[in-house]
């Protein structure tokens, strides 16, 4: 049977889209978690962390219900675009973003929290706005967490199964990802194809993690700005 490269393209596209969205969504959420003094903050932290402990099928079920034509999001999407979100690539992206949210937010938030508050205070006394403080002080010192969070979101989305199965189903070229493909092949007793596909996925995930840890080596971590100048 050989490897179905279409599922690879689809999975990579999904992981890429999810990572980009998680950077845009996760950074502000992480910033808020790291710096807010709101007393009920822990509730939000708990909600963000839920996907770590929740079975993917449970999360996927709720996402499916919400996206379906009777769910609020699904109904709204239906009225805007004229078709349903469930069993589409967009629906898959939404489900995956929720599923991988903690894998982006937590490393981001941890690295933001690790920035010495005195540096942030010094920046403010030097007249810097919160934006300037973020881009010149907090962000450069949080690069390791940023890399880790992005890579984990990417790798986690690459390998997800339960949410995809619930939300996306198994439509070739639209929602059939690598892990679904492997499952199908095993069901169909195509062990050689399953083996080849699984091996490629394994190598890709290994490559990504190697890159993360390679980039997070000490000299790079300690001196990110001087390296680029």
């Amino acid at each position: 049977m050989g490897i179905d490269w279409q599922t690879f393209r689809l999975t990579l596209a999904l992981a890429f889209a999810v990572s980009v969205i998680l950077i845009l969504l996760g950074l502000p959420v992480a910033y808020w978690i790291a710096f807010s003094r709101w007393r009920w903050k822990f509730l939000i932290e708990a909600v963000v962390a839920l996907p770590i402990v929740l079975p993917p099928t449970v999360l996927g079920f709720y996402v499916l219900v919400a996206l379906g034509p009777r769910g609020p999001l699904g109904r709204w999407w239906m009225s805007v675009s004229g078709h349903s979100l469930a069993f589409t690539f967009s629906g898959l992206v939404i489900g995956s973003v929720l599923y991988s949210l903690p894998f982006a937010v937590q490393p981001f938030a941890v690295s933001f929290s690790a920035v010495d508050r005195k540096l942030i205070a010094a920046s403010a006394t030097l007249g810097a706005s919160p934006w300037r403080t973020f881009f010149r002080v907090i962000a450069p010192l949080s690069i390791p967490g940023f890399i880790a969070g992005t890579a984990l979101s990417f790798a986690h989305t690459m390998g997800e199964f339960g949410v995809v199965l619930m939300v996306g189903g198994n439509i070739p070229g639209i929602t059939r990802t690598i892990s679904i493909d492997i499952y199908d092949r095993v069901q169909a007793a195509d062990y050689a194809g399953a083996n080849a596909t699984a091996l490629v996925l394994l190598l890709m995930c290994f490559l990504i993690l190697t890159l993360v840890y390679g980039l997070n080596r000490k000299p790079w971590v300690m001196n990110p700005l001087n390296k680029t100048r």
Partner: protein
Amino acid sequence: MSAPSTNVKEILQPSPLEDDRRLQGHIQKRLAAEPQDFALDLEFDAAPGITILFGASGAGKTTLLDCIAGLSTPDAGLISVANHVLFDSSSQIDVPVRHRRIGYVLQSLALFPHMNVRQNVDYGLPHLPASERRQRTGAILEAFHISHLSGRNAREISGGEAQRVALARTLVTDPDVLLLDEPLAALDAATKSKIIEDLREWNRTHRIPILYVTHSREEVFALGERALVLEAGRIIAAGTPHEVLSAPQIETVAQLAGFENIFDAFVETVSVERGTMTCHIAGDRGGILLETPLVRGGVGSKLRVGIRAGDILLATSRPVGLSARNIVPGRLASLEQRDVIVSARIDCGVEMEVHLTLAARDSLQLSAGRDVWLVIKTHSCHLMGR
């Protein structure tokens, strides 16, 4: 013994020209702390030049600076610089930190570790055109003698250099006030005085109020000028170092509790410029006179003098060539061994207890009735009000 904080204004008389550049205000702030809650409640007024804020750790010095800089919000009060209000609880004014124009060198210095020295120093000047930024940064690096470090990473320089960079980084923004939180605590005296000299030189042309926090007595005297003494959240004295530093030397009852020798005394003479005074302790044969550190209160004030038995030296002939100021003749009344300490009672007009080691007793061949001299350093005399 605490002076009301309203005295601050009278003591720190400004020259009329500089009146409008003052840092002024009053602050109230409660903080939850161990072992008991802490309340900052004080009034301050600093003219251009260095004003020293002196106090033990936990007196509220950093909290005060944080409130002035805007990093911490007072419960109530008013803070103004050059008659421009930065904080006013009654009219809900609270200017954000970045718009206060208050330079603040934190105790940790907080240099940006991912930037080199030049990037640190020009951090506060993003709004300037590149050429002016280069020029201003270059000038301040020059003024603080750190031009040669400009390409070095902030983590690769010495403590004294880091201090200079932190000062330059703050002063290049041309602040209206400079707050320094124990900036030189970790430096040796020579490095320290050079940096202070550069800071003074800079301020000769800029004339801004500089609030300099320290818990070191030596620094207060070294920096001269004006000092405020902060204790338990209140300003208890304001004036020149000599005037104010006497105040915290007054001990509390608890601090004197372990002293073997405690006497009632009267102040006979006061020498403000030397920082000493003489106290008379009543007793037989006219009692004794002791030179003690200067404390608040003039001639004739009633005090209590405490001297630890272990702080007194005992000599069997009249000692000469000593730095100690108090040499008191007396007669050994009794000797008593307690474990490995020998407690000697000496009649010298009053009865003093002196502690010796066994070896000292043996080599001096002490016995009751012998003429002895007691040697007591000025600063071994601890004073308490009564």
